[in-house]
């Protein structure tokens, strides 16, 4: 294990920012700390770096407990959200800073800095000052500076937060490639679930100081641990059912709810892919109208309205849409294939349930 947290908490005064968090980052892993703003993820990153002291719990880096080791001695590379480049130093001196502090010989420093300039595509920029660089270049200088003293782990705080959307996409791909080449254990903070899903091997999901789930992008998407994760990762339809005689109902939709007392409110959730659509009005049990279709490139997002006014979101490919001859305003029949019973926040989700197939025709695959 490269990084390990055991029951780590952090309180700012009386305000708990991080509560009893435990997770570990494996050697060579590229891991994301994901969550909404103010969720405590940056605090966790800063505690690992040694920029904050945990109120409680233990932090290990490469098996060594580092709680009492100063930030200078932890041998970590840290990339700040706004890069925090030294404004009075040019690119070369920025990258060389850590090496100078470690008293490397000038010749060795020059070789190392040139190597990093090459690796990060910054050749020719070594004399520029930070204010003379673009956002993307600044970020690469910040990464080069953090990598220069050969840290054992690389920590990045919202690495793509400060650059515009187009460059962000390039930087993501580039970070994956860099990580692949260096094989350096990397932990980065992001509030963008798409970014975390696309870039990382595994994701740690935070909300309001609590760890919600740790898993691969596929795991957190397909087996969300709780409602927060289910709603935060990807899109989810959430309905509140009222139970009567073993059946939970909302609008015209009905789901089996055996074992729940009458009057109980039960919440269920399902992915857009679980909503099956047929142009044949008798094919599925529920009637609906396609209220609006949104084009998202290859995929389309559909808003379906039921006669009771209930609105559901669905997804399909352009080809499926064309094959079913759908259009806005068209009447269709629908069914919800897979769904989960949702529990309260921080509590585990119920198992995935399947509505029995009525026919062989269905749209979409699983959730």
């Amino acid at each position, binding site marked *: 294990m490269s990084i390990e947290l055991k029951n780590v908490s952090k309180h700012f005064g009386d305000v708990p920012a991080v509560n009893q968090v435990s997770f570990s980052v494996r050697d060579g892993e590229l891991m994301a700390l994901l969550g909404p703003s103010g969720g405590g993820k940056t605090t966790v990153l800063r505690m690992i*770096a*040694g*920029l904050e002291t945990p109120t409680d719990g233990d932090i290990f880096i490469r098996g060594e407990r580092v709680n009492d080791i100063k*930030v*200078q*001695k932890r041998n*970590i*590379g*840290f990339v*700040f959200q*706004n890069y*925090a*480049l*030294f*404004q*009075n*130093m*040019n690119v070369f001196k920025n990258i060389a*800073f*850590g090496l100078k*502090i*470690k008293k490397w010989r000038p010749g060795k420093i020059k070789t190392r800095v040139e*190597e990093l300039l*090459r*690796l*990060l*595509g*910054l*050749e*020719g*920029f*070594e*004399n*520029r*000052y930070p204010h*003379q660089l*673009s956002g*993307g*270049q600044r970020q*690469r200088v910040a990464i080069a*500076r*953090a*990598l220069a*003293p*050969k840290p054992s782990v690389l920590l990045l705080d919202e690495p793509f937060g400060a650059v515009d959307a187009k*460059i962000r996409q*390039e930087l993501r*791909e*580039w970070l994956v*490639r*860099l990580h692949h*080449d*260096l094989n*350096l254990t990397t932990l980065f903070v992001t509030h963008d679930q798409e970014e975390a899903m696309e870039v990382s091997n595994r994701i740690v999901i935070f909300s309001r100081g609590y760890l919600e789930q740790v898993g691969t992008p596929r795991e957190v998407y397909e087996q969300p641990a709780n409602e927060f994760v289910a709603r935060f990762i990807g899109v989810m339809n959430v309905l509140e059912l009222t139970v009567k005689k073993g059946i939970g109902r909302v609008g015209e939709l009905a789901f089996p709810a055996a074992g729940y007392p009458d009057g109980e409110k039960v919440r269920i959730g399902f992915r857009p892919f679980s909503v099956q659509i047929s142009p044949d009005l008798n094919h599925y049990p529920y009637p609906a109208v396609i209220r609006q279709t949104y084009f998202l490139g290859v995929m389309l997002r559909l808003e379906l309205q039921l006669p009771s006014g209930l609105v559901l979101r669905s997804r399909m490919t352009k080809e499926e849409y064309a094959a079913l001859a759908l259009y806005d305003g068209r009447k269709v029949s629908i069914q919800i294939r897979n769904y989960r019973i949702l529990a309260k926040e921080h509590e585990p989700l119920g198992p995935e349930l399947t509505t029995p197939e009525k026919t062989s025709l269905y749209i979409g695959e699983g959730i």
Partner: protein
Amino acid sequence: MPGYLKSKRPGASTASMRGTEESPFFKWLLISIALLFAVVFLLLPLINVFAQALSKGWMVYWRALSDPDSLAAIRLTLLVAAISVPLNVLFGLASAWAIAKFSFRGKSLLNTLIDLPFSVSPVVAGLMYVLLFGLQGHFGQWLNEHDIKIIFAVPGIVLATLFVTFPFVARELVPVMESTGSEQEQAALTLGANGWQTFWRVTLPSVKWGLIYGVILCNARAMGEFGAVSVVSGHISGMTDTMPLRVEKLYNEYNSAAAFATASLLALLALLTLGIKTLLEWNQAREYARAQSARTLAEPGAAFVAPPQQSTP
């Protein structure tokens, strides 16, 4: 499309103007007013000082400056500046750091106190020290018994100067430090630097310009202070006269050529510090320009294409 071109012509002279831009008349009016004031109230009097100083020739000028009392005044002025400027730099750095980077009880009080010397008349400042350390003052008796002279001696002049120059460095540094924040310093820590290294290599350079302006202002005031120093000095020729006091004394003795000679030297010192500042700025600008024009191999986008063969990190 001649018709199209013609239709544009009427507005052509103003076509390139942005909505927020003032009319050329207004622009030149403002520039003229600023220039006129600068010339009439700043440049002409300054030139006049030098003209008057040299009105009776270089010999008189030289004799006025080499007079032992004048030399003593020059020495004292330099000494006072040499003591009070470093002390104010130290105080300014400490208080600016405290205000910009920490939050604590009494922070706003400290912030207000720093401005006190700006709002108190220098004469009052001088009097305060007389009331504290003078013979009739609170500590006067004790100081007298221990044979320590503060008022009508060099220490009093230094104290008074320290008081009036108190805010200059801190006032310049606080906004700079506040805008810089502490991320650069944290970055230095993660790269292995200790507190001292961080201060010398990151903090100090990042507030360099604020510090330079502060020192220049502080120095100018330390050399030029009249009111506060006048109260505590006692005007002992060759002993406790600083240059500004010496100028006044000579002028009152109808020795205007010598008065202007000393005054011109004071003005020269001020011009020199401004010259140094300009030189530093010019150097910095040249360094940036050189860095900007440096050969650029790869344009931003190109860097993302296939990173070259990688060696161990």
